[in-house]
C-alpha cells in the first residue's frame, strides 16, 4: 500500500491514504463536513455545495467531496467564511422547500432539518412565491413530493449505480428540475425503495409507511428478512406491536443499506387478514377454532397413540423456520417419534458441494467476498431477481473495483450489462482460459447444477490453479440451515449420515403414513390429496396443506420470534423478535408444548432459542461460531464440513422455486405489497 498522505485539517495533522477525498479524511478523524449529495459509494456530484471548505493556496472555497488529499494540504472546515457559505447554502435550499415538517414523514430524521438546526440561519429572507407542484404517486410504494426535493440526485444514483435499474431521472432544468420515473407517470422497477431510504428529505416517501407514525415513536429492532436466502438485516420500526417500516439505515447487516422490496416492505404478511389467530381442530370434518390446550392435547394424544400402535411418522420441516426450530424438530422426529422420515424442500445442492469440497479450506464465499473478490462466475441464476443482495454486492464490486463478471445463464440477466463475458447456456468450460487468467474467482450456481454437475464444477474450479470459492444458491431465509440441521432423511445435523435414510419430501407426501407433521411448509400446494392418517400443520396461514389438516397450529412469523437463521453463504445471523403476537406461537414453542403434552419434553431438553442454539453449537459441525458476533447482530460464517459426506446424493430432490423479486413461495401470496406493485403481475 502506498504511503499515507500527510495533511492538516482544522489544525490537526492527519494521515490519509492517497486518493482519499478531503470529506472522507475529515470524517475518519471525527471532523464533520456536511453534505447532501456526497454519498459514500456513489458517483460524485458536487451539486449541493454544502461541503465547501477552505484549502490554503486556493482562492475559492472548494468542495471537500471532490478534492483528494494532497501532501501538505491545509484544510479549514470551521472558518467564518465556511460557516457563512453553509448558512446561506441552507437558506437557498429552503427557499423553495415547503417547510411542511409537521406533516412530513421524514420529520425527526431529516438531514435537511438536522443541517438547518446545526449550520443554518435562523430565519429566511425569502418572501417570494415558492415553486409548487402537486405530490405524485410513482408506484404503490413510492410517492414523490417535488417541492421537498433538494435535488441531491442520491435516488437517481442508487437506482442506476446501486440497483442497476436506472428507473429515476432528472427532467426539466433550473428551478423546475425534478426527479421523474421511467414510465412517464409511474415507475416500473425493482420497487426496492432504496430511493426512499436514501432520500435525505421527505421528497420520496414510502406508500407503506407514510403518515403511520412519527419516527421517534418507533422502536427499532434489527432482525433478518424471512424471504430469500441472502440474509439481509432488516431493521423493523415497530410501535404497539405493529411493524411500520423495514429498512437498514444503520448498515448493520451483511447487506449494508441494501434491501429489496421483500426486505423493506414484504414483512406485511404478518398483518394479513387471513393470518391464523387460533388453533384449528377438525371436528365433524370441519376445521374449528379451539383453544391451544385442546389443540396441543389432540396432537399429543394422536402422536402417542400412533407411537403405541407402531404407526409411521413423517415430518416435513421448513425453509423459513429457525435453526433452533429445525434442530429441535429433527431431534423430536428422531428421538421421540423414532423416524428418519424427515425432510424439507431442498432448493440447492449444498450437500454435493460440501462433499466435493471435503478436505479443502477457505472454499465457501461470504456476502462480503462478493464485494471484495476479483472475479465471479454466475451459473444459471438470474441473480438480480432471485438473489438481489448477491447481485447488488457484485455490482458494487464491479463499480468500485472493476471486478470481472462471467455469466453463463439460460437467458439475459442484469449482469450482462457489466459482465466481461455473457454466455447463454451452460458451457462455462469454454471460459477456462479467461478464468485461469484471473487471480481468484467466486462461483455461484443455482439448482440447475446439482449432483455430478456440481462435482464437475468443483473439479473445473480446482483445476484453474487460482483460489476459487463457491456459493450453492438456495431459495429461502433458512434453506441452508434446514439442511445444516439435518432436516433430511439421510443426514443428521452437521452432515453426519443418518445411517437409515427415511422417506423424502415427496415420498412422505404420497405415502400412507400414520401421521404427518408439517412445520412451515406447503407440500400439498399443487392440489395433492393428503394420504397420512393424521395431519398436523404449523403455519401462519391456512395453506392448501393446512386446509387438509386435522390440527392447524398458528405459528409466529420470523419477525415475532428469536432464533438464528443461516443464509445461502452459510452465515448465521440472529432473528430478533420485533413484535409480540396474539394467538400464534413460535414453532419452537409449539413443538416444545407438544413434547410436553406427550411427556417427552425432558428427553429433548429446554425449548428456548438460546438453549437450543447452545446445543447446536455443541453438536452441529461448523456451528461453533463466536457468540459475541451473533449477539451483537453480526454474521458468523459456519465452518465447512471437513470430511466426506457418505450419503447417497439425491440431486433429483433439489428444486428451486426461482422466486423473482415479487414472489416468495407460499408466503409471498400473503404480502399485500408484493402483490400490489404492477411488476408482480408483469414478472415474477
Amino acid at each position: 500500500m502506498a504511503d499515507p498522505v500527510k495533511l492538516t485539517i482544522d489544525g490537526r495533522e492527519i494521515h490519509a491514504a492517497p486518493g482519499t477525498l478531503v470529506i472522507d479524511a475529515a470524517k475518519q478523524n471525527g471532523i464533520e463536513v456536511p453534505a447532501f449529495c456526497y454519498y459514500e459509494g456513489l458517483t460524485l456530484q458536487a451539486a449541493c455545495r454544502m461541503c465547501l471548505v477552505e484549502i490554503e493556496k486556493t482562492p475559492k472555497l472548494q468542495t471537500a467531496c471532490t478534492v483528494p488529499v494532497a501532501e501538505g494540504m491545509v484544510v479549514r472546515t470551521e472558518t467564518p467564511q465556511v460557516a457563512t457559505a453553509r448558512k446561506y447554502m441552507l437558506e437557498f435550499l429552503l427557499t423553495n422547500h415547503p417547510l411542511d415538517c409537521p406533516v412530513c414523514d421524514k420529520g425527526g430524521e431529516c438531514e435537511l432539518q438536522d443541517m438547518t438546526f446545526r449550520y443554518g440561519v435562523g430565519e429566511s429572507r425569502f418572501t417570494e412565491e415558492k415553486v409548487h407542484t402537486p405530490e405524485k404517486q410513482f408506484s404503490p410504494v413510492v410517492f414523490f413530493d417535488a417541492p421537498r426535493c433538494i435535488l441531491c440526485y442520491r435516488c437517481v444514483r442508487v437506482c442506476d449505480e446501486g440497483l442497476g435499474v436506472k428507473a429515476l431521472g432528472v427532467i426539466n432544468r433550473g428551478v423546475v428540475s425534478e426527479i421523474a420515473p421511467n414510465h412517464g407517470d409511474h415507475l416500473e422497477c425493482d420497487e426496492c425503495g432504496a430511493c426512499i431510504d436514501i432520500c435525505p428529505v421527505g421528497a420520496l416517501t414510502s406508500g407503506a409507511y407514510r403518515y403511520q407514525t412519527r419516527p421517534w415513536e418507533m422502536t427499532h429492532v434489527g432482525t433478518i428478512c424471512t424471504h430469500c436466502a441472502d440474509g439481509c438485516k432488516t431493521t423493523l420500526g415497530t410501535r404497539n406491536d405493529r411493524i411500520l417500516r423495514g429498512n437498514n439505515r444503520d448498515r448493520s447487516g451483511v447487506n449494508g443499506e441494501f434491501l429489496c422490496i421483500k426486505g423493506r416492505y414484504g414483512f406485511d404478511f404478518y398483518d394479513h387478514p387471513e393470518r391464523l389467530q387460533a388453533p384449528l381442530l377438525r371436528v365433524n370434518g370441519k376445521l374449528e377454532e379451539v383453544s391451544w390446550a385442546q389443540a396441543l392435547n389432540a396432537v399429543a394424544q394422536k402422536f402417542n397413540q400412533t407411537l403405541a400402535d407402531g404407526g409411521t411418522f413423517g415430518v416435513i420441516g421448513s425453509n423459513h423456520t429457525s435453526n433452533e426450530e429445525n434442530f429441535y424438530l429433527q431431534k423430536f422426529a428422531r428421538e421421540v417419534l423414532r423416524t428418519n422420515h424427515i425432510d424439507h424442500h431442498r432448493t440447492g445442492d449444498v450437500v454435493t458441494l460440501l462433499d466435493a469440497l471435503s478436505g479443502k479450506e477457505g472454499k465457501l464465499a461470504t456476502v462480503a467476498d462478493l464485494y471484495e473478490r476479483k472475479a465471479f462466475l454466475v451459473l444459471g441464476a438470474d441473480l438480480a431477481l432471485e438473489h438481489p443482495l448477491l447481485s447488488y454486492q457484485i455490482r458494487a464490486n464491479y463499480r468500485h473495483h472493476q471486478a470481472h463478471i462471467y455469466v453463463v445463464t439460460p437467458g439475459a440477466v442484469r449482469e450482462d450489462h457489466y459482465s466481461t463475458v455473457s454466455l447463454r447456456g451452460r458451457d462455462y468450460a469454454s471460459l477456462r482460459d479467461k478464468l485461469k487468467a484471473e487471480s481468484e474467482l467466486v462461483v455461484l450456481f443455482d439448482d440447475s447444477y446439482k449432483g455430478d454437475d456440481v462435482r464437475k464444477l468443483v473439479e473445473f474450479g480446482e483445476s484453474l490453479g487460482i483460489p476459487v470459492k463457491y456459493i450453492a444458491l438456495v431459495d429461502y431465509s433458512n434453506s441452508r440451515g434446514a439442511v445444516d440441521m439435518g432436516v433430511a432423511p439421510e443426514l443428521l445435523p452437521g452432515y453426519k449420515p443418518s445411517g437409515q435414510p427415511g422417506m423424502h419430501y415427496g415420498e412422505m407426501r404420497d405415502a400412507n403414513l400414520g401421521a404427518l407433521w408439517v412445520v412451515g411448509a406447503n407440500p400439498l400446494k399443487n392440489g395433492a390429496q393428503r394420504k397420512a392418517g393424521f395431519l398436523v400443520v404449523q403455519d401462519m396461514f391456512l395453506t392448501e396443506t393446512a386446509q387438509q389438516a386435522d390440527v392447524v397450529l398458528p405459528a409466529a412469523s420470523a419477525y415475532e420470534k428469536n432464533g438464528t437463521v443461516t443464509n445461502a453463504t452459510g452465515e448465521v445471523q440472529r432473528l430478533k423478535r420485533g413484535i409480540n403476537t396474539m394467538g400464534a406461537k413460535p414453532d419452537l414453542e409449539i413443538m416444545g408444548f407438544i413434547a410436553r403434552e406427550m411427556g417427552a419434553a425432558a428427553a429433548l431438553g429446554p425449548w428456548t432459542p438460546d438453549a437450543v442454539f447452545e446445543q447446536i453449537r455443541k453438536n452441529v459441525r461448523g456451528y461453533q461460531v463466536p457468540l459475541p458476533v451473533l449477539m451483537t447482530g453480526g454474521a458468523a460464517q459456519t465452518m465447512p464440513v471437513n470430511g466426506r459426506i457418505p450419503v447417497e446424493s439425491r440431486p433429483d430432490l433439489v428444486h428451486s422455486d426461482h422466486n423473482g423479486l415479487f414472489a416468495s413461495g407460499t408466503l409471498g401470496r400473503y404480502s399485500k405489497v408484493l402483490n400490489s406493485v404492477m411488476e408482480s403481475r408483469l414478472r415474477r
Partner: protein
Amino acid sequence: MTLSPQLEAKFNKLLESYPPGRQRSAMIPMLLYGQDEIGSVTDDLIEEVAGRIGVTALQVNEVLSYYSMLHRKPMGKYHIQVCTNISCLLHDGDKLYEHACKKLGIGHKEATADGQFSLEEVECMGACSWAPAIQVNYDFHHFVTPEQLDRLLDGLKKNAV
C-alpha cells in the same frame, strides 16, 4: 414509426457521425430534426430515437426536457421567437413581443387555434448588433419594428391560405 426518407437519411448520417459506441451523441440532433418534420417531440419520436441509440425513454426525456428548443406539444407552422434579452430590450424588444402577443392573440409558448402561428419570448439568439431581432422558425429578421412585424405576419398568413 415511419420516417420520411429525408429524415431517415439524416438519422442514419447522424448515427455514423460519432465514434463507435457513442451513438447516444446523435440524440439531440435527432430530436431536433425530428421535431422540425413532425412538429413536436412525440412519444413515438422518443421511442424511435431511444431505440436507435440504445437508451431508455426516460433518458431521452431527461435530455429533451432540458433543451428549450425541444417541444413536447406542437408549435405553430410559423414559430415566432422574439428576443427580449438585454441588447434587444434596449431596442424595445419587450414591446415588440407584446405587440406580437396582441397581434396573434396568444402568449408565451402558445399556438393559434388554426395551428399557423405560435409565439415564444426567447433568450439571446445572437443577433444583438441588429436588434431587435426575431426568428420565424430558423429564419432571422433583424431591426424589426412593430410595423414590419405586422407586415411579416400578414404575409405569412396569406401564404398559409
